[in-house]
């Protein structure tokens, strides 16, 4: 009971001698209390062991199915839904237009007289009268400045480059403007935008009308499937 501890330290009490403390002065609460608690040796119940096994099994199953292969770039834990759903091009196009284009070209697509050219009925947008699909994509990617004739009117302003937009976003907004305000031209797919971007990769400043018309016109391939223009 009162063996000295093996290592004497700051708390190594000398063995307590009963006569050092007057038991009569020790308070009743200490006198009446039980010995310090001990532990029984009952075994773990079988049902609990079974429950633990089931939990461990479930844990492995859940982790295997919801951990995204422990990859750092998988954020959706629901299995079978790992690839992001591509947004509807019509919704995406409308969103890109509202966020970036509407200030100058206006929600009506008519632009502002003598300042910003219209998109509605524009030969540039619809790729008519010697204009090609790749001109349109190239303008959005690199911008356009200087005199430009649209629907028979002369505009002289500057459109900034939008090359920070992703190929899908540019394709979606081009498809959008080609299907609004009475426009009805074929949709443009992301692959076509990517090709134009690659072919004009060394371009550093905005185009002029003359430069654009000097390059070889290309037509976007017919989009397959979901990128069809609105009726």
């Amino acid at each position, binding site marked *: 009971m009162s*063996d000295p*501890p093996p290592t004497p330290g700051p708390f190594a009490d000398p063995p307590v001698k009963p006569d050092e403390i007057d038991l009569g002065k020790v*308070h*009743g609460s200490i006198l009446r209390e039980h010995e310090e608690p001990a532990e*029984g040796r009952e075994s773990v119940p079988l049902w609990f062991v079974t429950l633990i096994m089931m939990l461990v099994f479930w844990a492995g199953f859940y982790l295997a199915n919801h951990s995204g292969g422990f990859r*750092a770039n*998988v*954020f959706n*834990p629901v299995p079978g839904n790992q690839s992001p759903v591509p947004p509807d091009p019509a919704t995406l196009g409308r969103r890109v237009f509202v966020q970036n284009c509407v200030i100058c070209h206006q929600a009506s697509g008519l632009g502002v007289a003598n300042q910003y050219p219209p998109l509605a009925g524009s030969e540039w947008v619809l790729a008519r009268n010697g204009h090609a699909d790749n001109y349109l994509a190239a303008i959005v990617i690199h911008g356009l400045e200087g005199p430009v004739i649209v629907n028979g009117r002369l505009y002289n302003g500057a459109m900034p480059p939008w090359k920070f937009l992703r190929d899908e976003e540019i394709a979606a907004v081009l498809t959008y403007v080609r299907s609004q305000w009475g426009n009805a031209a074929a949709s443009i797919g992301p692959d076509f935008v990517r090709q134009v971007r690659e072919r004009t990769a060394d371009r550093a400043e905005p185009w002029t009308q003359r430069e654009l018309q000097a390059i070889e016109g290309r037509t976007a391939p017919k989009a397959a499937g979901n990128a069809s223009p609105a009726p």
Partner: protein
Amino acid sequence: MSAGEPTTESRVERAEIDRSLRGPVLFFFSSGIAWLLLGSALGLLSAFKMSFPHLLDSAGWLTFGRVRPAHLNIVIYGWASSVGIGVGIWLMARLCRVALRHRGMLLGAGVAWNFGVALGTAGILAGQSRSIEWLEFPGWATPVLFVAYALIGGWGVIMFRYRRPGHVYVSQWYLLAAFLWFPWLYATANVLLIWQPVQGSVVGAVNWWYGHNILGLWFTPIGLASAYYMIPKVLGRPVHSYYLSILGFWSLALFYSWNGMHHLIGGPFPAWMVSASVVASVMMFIPVIAVAINHHCTMRGHFHYLKWSPTLRFTVFGAMTYTVVSLEGSLMAIPSLNNLTHFTDFTPGHAHLGLYGFFTMTMFGAMYYIIPRLVGWEWPSAAMIRWHFWLAASGIALMVAALTVGGFLQGLELNDPQVAFMTSVAVVAPFRFVRALSGILLAAAHLVFAVLFVRMLMRRGERREEATLLAPQGTHSELPTV
């Protein structure tokens, strides 16, 4: 072994140990109770502001954005940690069978701890809150707390190092772990969030790693250590099973520190981080059920002691709540249920059930046992203890019921895209008012306890040698040792 009657020698030894602990432990209890009163007042104020937004909004330091984090940090660091340290040091000394030496240092560390809490609270009220949940104290207050803690926690570890030879009891494992876990948590969170802040979403991961672990690896082990001591001690019978104790302790240590990420389900984190946390949260069934079986089987056949013993009544209330709140927490981590409870009042309901229903009630129970031994006086009024218990128990029950039901309905509204946001606010408003009323019950309970504590310190009432029981013993002959 507890079966035999204690020897005179062991009684004298305990008297020695208690005498050496008197100053520091009573200091931690006194300051903790003072913070509890202040924390209750601030909590009440924030609760009523939810119903009456313009209440006391004329001064900046009384606005919700300051009062609410002040309430949180006061009850965490001022009340719960202080009283936890007091109980933890007492239990450690008793179980290691070593008297406390150099108690002035522990007392000084306690003063520094309180200074740190006061400094941090003043910082929050002055508008310097750091807006990192559970770590709102400004950066210039936390080093004080850390240094103070290093002294306090070191004390617990040193006592363990120089323990008398013999069996190491389950409460000692939990206490040793808690004394080592807290500085690890607190230092890591401060380094990664304040001094060398990480960037982006990692902030959230570290924040909730800390926020949840402070509950599970600091308060929970202290609360369990206390329950593991008080229940067999008062009953005078051994804890049911050593093997369940081992299982419960190590599974807590293994699973708990993964739990925090379940606060971030749906957040911008790799799927495996959140899923690992969900799994670990559900695996918390293992430690919780192990402890529940152990405590229940120790109590079995002795539940009538709850009629008499204040210690046992508070402790068993806390231990049972531990089971309930932990199982609820595991279920809340399952993503399909989390969808409903996340961002609703359900979560603060759960938090209060844990920190109050479990931890605070367990600490009250421990104090009812410890204080008479330190002061050498019996509790002066059984009626006040009964008032304390029933006000606290009904207050926390009402609060959790209101927040749980209100949060559930709020979640249903929030998840319906057809419903305007303000509808979800209107749905939960009456429940928030009930929650504020429940806070009055809790504050009243704390006032009763504070008065009782002061009367105890001043040795009011008549000198008695027999325990203060909650009810007359009647025909029962067993005497709980309270």
